[in-house]
């Protein structure tokens, strides 16, 4: 099995360019400070914060369900909005990303190369911009909260995620 392209891609080297004709075409959850991948990457690097990268799709059913039933949770909102840098990629967008190797591709091509099959897919990064884990599909409030704690309390430095989750 080939390793996901995304997991071989140093996040620090991903820069997003948006043409004047382009816009953020999809819809991350309201009230959260989701940024373009460019802005988020730069911010995470400068502030030494962990990052959540959300691959979504315009009109995606499970994304909409999570927005309404999970991301509306006040404690989750506080945890992620304050402690994480948030990035959003529209898996069907024609906006372009510039990769570390100098290549420019659309967000959609980036998602397919990253083997993002479904949405939502969440990639969690440590403050030093290493990929920690990926979660695809519907996640509950409790799960999202535990993922956040796992990173913010730095359990990832000593404990596998599965073991941490089992102990909660």
């Amino acid at each position, binding site marked *: 099995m080939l390793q996901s*392209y995304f997991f071989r891609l140093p996040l620090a080297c991903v820069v997003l360019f948006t043409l004047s*004709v382009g816009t953020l075409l999809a819809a991350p959850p309201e009230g959260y400070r989701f940024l373009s991948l460019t802005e988020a990457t730069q911010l995470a690097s400068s502030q030494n914060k962990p990052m959540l990268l959300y691959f979504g*799709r315009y009109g995606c059913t499970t994304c909409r369900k999570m927005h309404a039933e999970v991301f509306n949770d006040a404690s989750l909102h506080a945890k992620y909005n304050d402690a994480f840098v948030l990035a959003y990629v529209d898996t069907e967008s024609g906006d372009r990303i510039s990769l570390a*190797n100098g290549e420019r591709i659309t967000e959609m091509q980036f998602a397919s190369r990253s083997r993002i099959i479904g949405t939502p897919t969440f990639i969690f990064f440590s403050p030093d911009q290493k990929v920690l884990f990926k979660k695809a599909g519907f996640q509950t409030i409790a799960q999202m909260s535990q993922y956040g704690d796992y990173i913010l309390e730095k359990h990832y430095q000593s404990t596998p995620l599965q073991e941490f989750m089992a102990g909660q």
Partner: protein
Amino acid sequence: MKLRFAGLWLVLIIFQSQASDRWVFAGRSAVTGAAQDRVYHHLDGSGRKHIAVTKQSVAAVWEDNRSQTPQIYATLKSFSSDRFTAALQVSDGGEAYEPSIDALSNNRFALAFEQDASVFARILTAEGLGVPTRLSHQAASHVSIASFNDQVFASWRERDSGRWFLKVAVLRIEDTNRFIVESVQSVEAEGLETPLLFPAIAVNAAGLCVAWEDRRAGHTRLLVSHTADMGKPFNAPQPLNEFFSNRNEYDKGNGVTRVSLASFGEDEILAAWMDKRRGSTGYGIFAALGADAGENFGPNEKVHGEEGDRLAHYNPATAGNQAGDFIIAWDDFRRADSDIWISAYNSDLEWSQDHAPSVASGSGEQSHPSIALDEQGNLHLLWIERSQQDGPSRLWYSLGRPQKP
């Protein structure tokens, strides 16, 4: 003994595979030189039209960053030659993307491309490039070009005063190999607040058809519109994809994206796109056939075979000819790395088993196919090859000759 039986099965498998091949590919030709460090070729854009064929030659158009910035390049190969010409730089701005090509008479080709948030059209001949013509007035992108009997049409999206428009232009060819914009109309006079994406265009004797990704419903749907005469307005947009919803209160329907159109026969249109109706397995390749230049489309049809039911497929491209042949190509990861796959109707008028041309499969990444059919039914295939997914790339071409039944 086991070894002998294994050998026999291998022979049978190979024989069956070859027997099922509707096209036989004799080899491949380099469209660009050997892969160079940090140079990346892209075949991407509305309708995935990057290769076209005249009676005398085949031409390809693409984007790459050999000059440090993304620019458009084109090349052609006479059928009497084994080699493509040196690449001609088509664009000359800060950055350019997503070219499109179609064939004209007298061994000429029509090109369209995006450059610095405008869209342009330009003629390519064996002697070189004509002067570019700007098609758009406001910020524009996602251009595609199509021709029929030297009537040339281009479609693109344009944003004016915060609203999105789908524009279609009629282009006239001047003697000096320059396009003149004769007229431009919006498919819908009222612009949209929501974006429309990647309009594809096809034309034949019965008229003109455009299909695009539309987000006005709070969800992406493929819409199609038709006119029998560019002097008249386009008809009201109709849905192209059948969509499925009501899983729960949040469900507005399955995802669809990147439609490609091709004219075939006298007046028919083939549409193919990526469609998430299968749920968790990602995009499938689905298609529909439209009569009367896309005025009336038939039901949606799943293109890929059962083997491909459990994985995602990408980058569908279509081709057709006036003899009535039509075909779809795409790429997927069913063999771990990406290969090119094709499917066409079999004798039962059903989509054939998926076939991976040996020239465009195997080790390394072969992806982003673009295809053309000539009037003899030969299949012209263009694709990107990389030794690894994030490595440098090159472009290949292969000619598939139809097998005698």
